[in-house]
């Protein structure tokens, strides 16, 4: 029932079902309606071309080919289904037998199936056709056995995945026999995908059967199916092409009907995507420009940056009006929980957000050049040489099929006109600079031959191929273990001192940020809620969220018998933001004002911006007292 409904959800599915029902109806009805006409010999109308009386012409005995094509539906479909039934039965037996049989016997079956599966179906069918003999019975058995290995493989994979599930394991531990486990637990759970596969397989069997009959190995005269009619028609293709094309079209249509049904069921069961409702875009409210910070020429200037993505329920806006600047050589950290929009902010600033994401900003400038208005082509060299990225997971961020050295060298080849050799030499130099041991040898290795920390250092080295003015590091240490984290952070710090590049460090770890950065931006639900010097973070942080973040950081004095603190509640979904302050529902200081009006980021002193209606005022207070509803273990 579920399958049927899934099938009827798409227009293609409806088409497929209608087509299939038509073919099946024809299979049942055609011999009754046109049976007499199909066998009526008319010696006056031998081998005629198409005409009003005979749509596809006539054969050597003057029989109407259109009627014969229609009547042949029953035999063609029937034989295909029969062959498929044999295939599915034998296949399922072979595929599930290893679960029941003693281990060694099971292994032999698996091995044989694996070998048989490598051979194309038609070859197996021919083999079995020889064994079972030429003719209808032989062909049904041949195609059935030829499709069996494929089904065995499917059944094997499916039952292996089911066998790993908890309830099967539980049944086994409870002493339920293997056969019973197979029948009661495994088979019912693999039935559905097997049926889907069988539907597609029926289409394939239909085509194979037509092929065998066409070759003269399948159905023998006086019986006839589409393949037989096609084979006879081909001999007369000069005089009456319709005789071959008619049954040909029938085969294709019927085959398609089975295929499409199977495919649409599979697709519908696999992933159901509700129709996207695209809401009209609204422009993000511009955040006020902070005074004083942008006197000098900044490396990165971001004003009113927003990022939107279409979702099932409208546009989500995970970054909503972010404003900050980054001076030359400055290190700024961005902290916040996952989903706060910090990574997207970094990607948007680097122009790396891809469709269907949409980036908008009042101003987005890197090294004095606007990033959003200029076409990608013009910015390529500037960004390629001056903006370096370090991503979270060094394992997935390197291309697994290319050598590390080449991946670094590419930058110099693309943007600095170096040749292959020169670029590689520079890559080796940079690897040495980021303290990769034996850099010349390492440059010739693939990423999987590097350790995690070494990969991340190589990633930093890749950023150094040009002359970076800004390094954006998006959670660069999250995927690494603690000792390696320190090395990578120290390296970043050193690179910053050596090259005078600014650093934008994204992290959910407030401790990491305070150690490495000059300034900290705290993000919550797509907004910057507080911006202050890192050195003053513990003393002067005034946003309740910032204080909560600080409070959950364990220190040496923390009571180890108590569970680690977490901030109660969860951040709001980007698609369902509250009217007022996004943090209000988790904030112990929240009032009605917080719930109705959204606080804007405004300067509250030198180097300090804040978006809160009720800042925490006891600035020097112990963080444990200031913690807000910190609860239970992680």
């Amino acid at each position, binding site marked *: 029932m579920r399958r049927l409904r899934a099938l009827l959800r798409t227009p*293609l599915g409806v088409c497929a079902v209608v087509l299939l029902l038509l073919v099946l109806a024809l299979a049942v009805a055609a011999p009754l309606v046109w049976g007499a006409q199909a066998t009526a010999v008319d010696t006056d109308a031998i081998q005629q071309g198409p005409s009003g009386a005979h749509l596809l012409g006539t054969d050597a005995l003057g029989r109407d080919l259109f009627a014969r094509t229609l009547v042949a539906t029953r035999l063609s479909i029937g034989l295909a289904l029969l062959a498929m039934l044999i295939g599915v039965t034998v296949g399922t037996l072979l595929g599930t037998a290893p679960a029941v049989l003693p281990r060694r016997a099971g292994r032999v079956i698996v*091995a044989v199936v694996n*070998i048989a599966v*490598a*051979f*194309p179906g*038609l*070859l197996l069918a*021919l*083999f079995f056709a*020889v*064994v079972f*003999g*030429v003719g209808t019975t032989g062909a049904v058995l041949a195609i059935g056995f030829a499709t069996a290995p494929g089904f065995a493989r499917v059944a094997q994979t499916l039952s292996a995945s089911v066998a790993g599930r908890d309830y099967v394991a539980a049944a086994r531990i409870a002493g339920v026999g293997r056969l019973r486990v197979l029948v009661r637990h495994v088979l019912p759970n693999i039935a559905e995908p097997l049926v889907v596969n069988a539907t597609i397989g029926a*289409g394939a069997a239909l*085509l194979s059967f*037509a*092929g065998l009959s*066409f*070759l*003269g*190995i399948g159905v023998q005269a006086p019986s006839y199916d589409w393949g037989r009619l*096609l084979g006879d*028609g*081909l001999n007369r*293709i000069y005089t009456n*092409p319709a005789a071959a*094309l008619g049954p*040909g079209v029938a085969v*294709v249509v019927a*085959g*398609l009907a089975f*295929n499409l049904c199977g*495919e649409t069921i599979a697709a519908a069961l696999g992933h159901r995507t509700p129709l996207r409702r695209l809401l009209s875009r609204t422009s993000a409210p511009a955040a006020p420009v902070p005074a004083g910070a942008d006197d000098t020429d900044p490396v990165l200037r971001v004003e009113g940056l927003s990022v939107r993505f*279409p979702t099932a329920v409208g546009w989500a806006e995970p970054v909503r009006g972010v404003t900050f600047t980054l001076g030359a050589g400055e290190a700024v950290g961005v902290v916040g929980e996952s989903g706060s929009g910090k990574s997207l902010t970094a990607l948007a600033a680097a122009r*790396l957000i*891809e*469709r*269907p994401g949409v980036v908008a900003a009042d101003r987005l400038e890197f090294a004095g050049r606007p990033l959003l208005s200029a076409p990608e082509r013009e910015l*390529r060299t500037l960004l*390629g040489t001056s*903006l*370096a*990225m370090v*991503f979270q*997971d060094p394992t*997935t*961020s*390197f*291309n*697994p*099929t*290319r050598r590390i050295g080449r991946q670094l060298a*590419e*930058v110099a080849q*693309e*943007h600095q006109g170096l040749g292959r050799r020169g670029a590689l030499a520079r890559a080796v130099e940079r690897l040495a600079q980021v303290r990769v041991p034996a850099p010349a040898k390492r440059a010739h290795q*693939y990423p*999987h031959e590097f350790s995690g920390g070494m990969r991340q250092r190589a*990633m930093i080295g890749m950023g150094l191929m040009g002359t970076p003015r800004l390094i954006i590091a998006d959670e660069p240490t999250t995927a690494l273990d603690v000792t390696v984290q320190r090395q990578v952070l120290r390296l970043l710090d050193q690179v910053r001192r050596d090259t005078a590049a600014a650093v934008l460090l994204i992290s959910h770890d407030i401790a990491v940020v305070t150690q490495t950065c000059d300034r900290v931006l705290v993000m919550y639900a797509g907004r910057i809620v507080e911006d202050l010097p890192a050195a003053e973070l513990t003393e002067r942080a005034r946003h309740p969220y910032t204080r909560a973040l600080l409070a959950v950081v364990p220190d040496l004095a923390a009571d180890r018998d108590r569970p680690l603190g977490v901030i109660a509640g969860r951040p709001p979904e980007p698609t369902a933001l509250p009217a007022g302050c996004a943090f209000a529902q988790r904030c112990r200081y929240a009032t009605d004002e917080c719930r109705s009006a959204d606080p804007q980021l405004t300067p509250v002193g030198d180097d300090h911006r804040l978006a809160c209606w009720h800042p925490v005022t006891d600035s020097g207070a112990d963080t444990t007292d200031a913690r807000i509803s910190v609860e239970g273990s992680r």
Partner: protein
Amino acid sequence: MTTELRPALPATAVRAWRSPWLLFALRRLGRFAISLWVLVTASFLMIHLVPGDPVRAALGMNAPASVVRARRELLGLDDPLPVQYWHYLQGLVHGDLGVSVSSNESVASVIGQRLPATAQLAVLAFLLVLLIAVPLGVTMAVATRGGRRRGGELGFAVSAVVLAAIPEFLLAVALVYLFAVNLHWFPVAGQQGPLSFVLPVVALAVGPAAVLARIVRVEMLAVLGQDFVRTARAKRLRPRRIYLRHALPNAVTATLTLAGLMLTSMVAGTILVENVFAWPGLGAKIVSSILAKDYPMVQGIVLVYGVGVLLVNLVVDVLLGVLDPRSTIREA
């Protein structure tokens, strides 16, 4: 795993033994050998699985008993099965595939004459498939990523499904009708000159190309969503370089696996297409031999097709190992 057991070997030998490449190659060769043995045994048993007397079946009911007996003798069918098996294997080693029941020709020489025509057809069709499917799949992936051009995507998917559903022999018939019978551009049948290759090759290639193009597109889309592509974009490489040098090699693994399957099924497809075009290859011969119950001939040709399939699989596996260095390591 085996490495720990061999401390006595000199260091270089240990290193060679440890090489994932060597292990990988050995494993693949082992698999090939086992499959080959199963294939040879199956083709040997085929003649014995035929119900009744295969010689009587081949020569017909009216053949004198003495002739049947003589032929059985010649084929060694009266020896015990293990002896026959041994002789069969011995023959194979010397390139002796037996003698045709109906024509008395050597099976090996018939295969030698006809194999090139079939191989040419299969290889050309395979090249055409790659030539169509890879650029088309990549282009479609790039053009439709991020939900762009939904109409184009739908059109591509539907036409690919329809084209893939047309079996090669039907397409062959349609092509003959259109381009040979009506337009006279190409010969209707036979192998005479380069032009005669066009229709059979196209008939073989269209369906697999449609399937492969879909796979390439899906694989490319998956690869384009991965982290290292973002890294490549962060390096501000030219889009063409990102697609062709960074993404495509990573989409090749699945594509190649499927292309291998396709090449093997194309080997079988040639059987049908050869019969449409009266192509002087193995496909036409195997069908006529099956109908004539010429079992030694069928046996020999099945063996050749089977070995072809196994070789394709072996080559694909090795290529995968070269192109995707992780796969060798993962297995070792």
